[in-house]
């Protein structure tokens, strides 16, 4: 410790009693696996998002009032533009570093959502959602939902032609809610689209409400991990139900996290140099009644857009009271169904196999046929829907007419996910039968099963056998 640091620490320690707690924190053991860092990637992306977001907020003007652009970008000199779009142009082309930070912000938003989804996949596949961690799993689903809202509102703020089209579709989605649609849409938009309130309100959602909720929920998410400790992959010779095997926070985990945050920021900046994913100058400002033949949402909304594209024409009235339409079924019910299925899955698994007690050791999804089938079924469904949102590009690249591309997805989205789910479910069942085992109902049972197969295979435990026993 450098003298300055120890002086500062001693001063604080004399007043706050830091020595004991800091040792406890430094000695906290972290299981070591690359997939455990996905959540950290999401966390650090959030930090980058907040930091760059603060910079962008200094320049952005949340308004659609007509403003004359007088900056250096040739295509708009002297043109009347919505203030939001004009401020984005100024930020991108007339503020040093503005474009770089916008691109980093956009890249970090991609990474935040992607890492969150991959993190959720890891949790789902390995069974880290099982008791006692259901609450944290549901918090995570809530976080991903808000990440989508943050991503969509952020995509909308520049008020370019794509953003305006996206807002229009979101408005139609709200309208499609049976019975209350028009009311809800008017509450959120402040009247019939496009009102002057849309952009100011989306701005408040994007920079205050949603990030506030995300930060609060992330804090709780982390507090729960600290309280409940990590799950871990099975390690032979270590009773993972009672012990955590890993590396201490200081120095190993700290070094990994510090390296990760720096590399991630470096990669985000490199991506911002090469990939112009936040540039909107050529898209032009949104003008009501105009659309470009390039209307697509960001990738994380592809699955909803794909569902809207392939859903067959549907609209009927129920007793003249309420209307059920395609956009409601494909754009609201279907995503709602997917999220509900994800949220309900832990209970389904516990009930299906009569699971008992707490679980801290991760399990191969192939050991649990229901989970293998559910995961492949639901994620292949979401991926196929996402692919359907790229139908226009696929049509152009392959030379197949778009009608046929959409029919292809109509059929595969219905047929393929259940078939794949059933196939892997059967495979997992046969695999268990081959080892003449059943799904373990408690962690102890699972360990006994694993130990017996080990003995049967005649292998010697690699870890010191006394390790668990030596602990009190």
């Amino acid at each position, binding site marked *: 410790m450098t003298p300055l640091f120890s002086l500062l620490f001693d001063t604080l320690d004399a007043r706050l009693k830091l020595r004991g707690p800091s040792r406890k924190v430094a000695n906290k053991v972290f299981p*070591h*696996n*690359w*997939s*455990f*860092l996905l959540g950290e*990637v999401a966390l650090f992306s959030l930090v980058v998002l907040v930091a760059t977001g603060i910079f962008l907020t200094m320049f952005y003007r949340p308004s659609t009032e007509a403003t004359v652009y007088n900056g250096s970008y*040739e*295509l*708009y000199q002297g*043109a009347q533009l919505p203030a939001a779009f004009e401020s984005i142009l100024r930020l991108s082309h007339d503020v040093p570093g503005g474009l770089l930070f916008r691109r980093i912000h956009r*890249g970090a938003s*991609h990474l935040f959502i*992607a*890492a969150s989804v991959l993190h959720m996949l890891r949790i789902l596949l390995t069974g880290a959602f099982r008791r006692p961690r259901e609450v944290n799993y549901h918090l995570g689903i809530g976080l991903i939902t808000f990440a989508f809202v943050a991503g969509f509102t952020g995509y909308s703020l520049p008020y370019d*032609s*794509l953003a305006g089209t996206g807002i229009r579709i979101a408005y139609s989605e709200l309208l499609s809610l049976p019975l209350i649609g028009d009311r809800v849409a008017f509450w959120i938009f402040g009247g019939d689209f496009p009102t002057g309130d849309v952009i100011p309100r989306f701005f408040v959602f994007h920079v205050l409400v949603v990030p506030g909720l995300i930060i609060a929920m992330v804090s709780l998410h982390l507090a729960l991990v600290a309280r409940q400790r990590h799950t871990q*992959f099975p*390690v*032979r010779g270590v009773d993972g139900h009672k012990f955590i095997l890993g590396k201490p926070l200081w120095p190993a985990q700290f070094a990994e996290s510090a*390296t*990760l945050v720096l590399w*991630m920021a470096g*990669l985000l900046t490199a*991506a911002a*140099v*090469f*990939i*112009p*994913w936040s540039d*909107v100058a*050529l*898209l*032009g400002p949104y003008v009501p009644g*105009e659309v*470009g*033949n*390039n209307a*697509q*949402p960001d*990738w994380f909304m*592809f699955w909803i857009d794909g569902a809207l594209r392939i859903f067959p024409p549907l609209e009927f009235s129920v007793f003249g009271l309420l209307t059920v339409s395609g956009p409601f079924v494909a754009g609201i019910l279907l995503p709602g169904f997917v999220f509900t299925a994800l949220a309900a899955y832990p209970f389904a698994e516990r009930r299906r196999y009569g699971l008992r007690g707490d679980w801290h050791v*991760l*399990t191969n999804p192939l*050991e649990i046929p229901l989970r293998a089938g559910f995961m492949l079924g639901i994620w292949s469904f979401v991926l196929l829907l996402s692919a359907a*949102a*790229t*139908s226009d590009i696929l049509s*152009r690249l392959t*030379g197949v*007419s*778009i*009608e046929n591309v959409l029919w292809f997805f109509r059929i595969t989205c219905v047929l393929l996910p259940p078939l794949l789910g059933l196939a892997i479910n059967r495979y997992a069942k046969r695999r268990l039968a081959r080892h003449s*085992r059943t799904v373990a109902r408690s962690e102890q049972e699972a360990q006994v*099963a694993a130990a017996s*197969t*080990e003995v049967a*295979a005649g*292998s010697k435990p*690699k870890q010191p056998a006394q390790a668990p026993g030596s602990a009190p």
Partner: protein
Amino acid sequence: MSRRHRALLGWAVVVAAGVASLMAQLGRPAVAQTEQLTSAERTRAGIIYASQCATCHGAEGTGGVTPAGDPVPALAGNPDVTVPYVDLVMRVGRMPPAGDPYDNRSREVLLDAEQRRLVTAYVAEEFDLGGSVPTVGEGNPVTGREVFAANCAQCHGSSGAGGVAGAGAWTPPVVNTDPVTIAEAIRVGPFQMPGFNNQQITDAEIADIAAFLEVVSEEAGTPAGLVELNPVYASGFAALFVGIVVISLFIIAGRPKWFPDPSGQPTGRGLSRRQRKARAEQEPAA
């Protein structure tokens, strides 16, 4: 019925061109070219026509059917076929076709500027076609962008990258297209594209659109050569980027390993190469 209206369209083009040439004399830079071929040029043009066009359209320009049985429009006496139309189809490579003549995605252009000039003049003389090849003056890209967004972007995309039109039709990209092609296409309305007359898009606005597309084509890209991304391509790059980040996780925390097999294979924990080496050195000692 359609024919008659197309005749009207043909006349509209002629009239527009006439008006344009009149305006050119008043200082507007839009002139109609009238082409007179020398006899040597005529012979060359005749050879090109005979080898590249006559197979389907006939030596007399009567049209007919392709060997595959698809209809071929007549050139002679067809009010649809005008000089700008003939010039346009050769400029964009639709004719002579490098592949399927009915595939309207962007394609190879087989005739160079000189050959095109000869053929255009040849068929204009031979089949008595109306209209002329327009010229396009200087325009204002700022106005051009607004006109493009209001009239063209719904089919060709906000930045002119082209797109899908349904029923096996694709709208071609219009960036890196020369101004004459743009002017001809707007007035003629080739194939699935609706035409626009001078009331809707004036000659000056056409020049503005061309100026806008010129600016778009010159837009500075990133060091990777990328200019503004369509969300689908952006998503591809996002996937690539996330992949690189995941690889960096492997470098930081060790390579991924699958679960231990129930019959007792190695654990799911990964170690970096350096760690494994250090451990291997230590293990014999321990």
